[in-house]
């Protein structure tokens, strides 16, 4: 299968950096060590024709060792193949290489991920909050923070079983 081929290529290139390959999801999914994420993506773009960054987003698993994750979706437009790359970092040192140099479009997606999860993208040209107010002092998408606005006065949560 072509996914195998892709995996082989990546494996020969990066050896232990590729931690896991998952196929039970809808598209070919790789878990990559945080330190080599940039080079993996660069390799995919330059040698495997994944020229299109579809998406980049964060995720939070509070119960895991590496709490914070970043998920990249790449797209090989010509052969119409997609690949999903996941990488995880600990919450204490949430540092990850920025891929803005490879894909300009990653700029705001990384800023958004920083805003939501506090993941710090090293090498990002302007890593500031993008959607939230600048004086916000927490990262709202982390699971421990509530959704609701504390100032709402016209609702009683008890009625909703939440």
């Amino acid at each position, binding site marked *: 299968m072509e996914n195998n081929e892709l995996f082989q290529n990546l494996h020969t290139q990066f050896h232990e950096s590729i931690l896991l390959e998952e196929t039970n999801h809808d598209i070919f999914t790789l878990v990559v060590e945080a330190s080599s994420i940039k080079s993996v993506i660069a390799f995919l773009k330059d040698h495997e024709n994944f*020229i299109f960054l579809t998406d980049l987003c964060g995720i939070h698993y509070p119960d895991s060792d590496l709490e914070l994750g970043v998920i990249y979706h790449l797209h090989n437009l*010509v052969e119409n193949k997609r690949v999903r790359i996941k990488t995880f970092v600990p919450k204490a040192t949430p540092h990850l290489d920025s891929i803005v140099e490879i894909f300009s479009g990653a700029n705001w997606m990384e800023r958004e991920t920083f805003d939501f999860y506090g993941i710090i993208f090293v090498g990002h040209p302007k890593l500031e909050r993008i959607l939230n107010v600048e004086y916000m002092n927490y990262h709202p998408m982390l699971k421990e923070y509530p959704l609701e606005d504390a100032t709402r006065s016209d609702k009683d949560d008890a*009625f909703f079983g939440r």
Partner: protein
Amino acid sequence: MIPNSKNKIVLTKRSKVVSNKTMTWIERLYLPAIFQGMAITLSHFFKKEVTIQYPEVQRPVSDIYRGLHVLKRDDQGRERCTACGLCALSCPAEAITMIAAERKEDEMHLYREEKYASLYEINMLRCIFCGNCETACPKEAIFLTERFVPSQTKRDKFIYGKDVLVEPKDAPIDISKRQTPEVLAFKKDKTQSHNK
């Protein structure tokens, strides 16, 4: 295979360039296009206006328009709501508040089931009229109607209680157009306990 100006990637065979940027010399003269445009606007000048004079003339809304809610009574004038709470649960805006109460013996003619909502409030400012409550209701009790919620000058006037929501006994609100033909057919079957 990174595209550049010479080597454009082509993904399908269906593409077609649609923008023509070269102007003919007639188009360069400005005037023909201007006259054409003026002819179009003038043709509309003499067309009948489509404006609906709203407060005096009402535009017909569709039969299933999602407007102000109604709490239905059954044929004998008893409130259908049984305070199961599904509507409140299904509300994305969390606009519905209800308190359930047990029906007493002498309230048989008022409430249909053993439980009823002693308090049923919808915050119309929060409500987004998505119709989830109507879909969620298993007792044919809450429906949205094609009435509008009027605007108010004070915020607390938007908490609609049972006094507004429950349909008046003498003037029931017809919601049969919102129901599927199957439901309407089912409603005719008076042997079913639901329809008694």
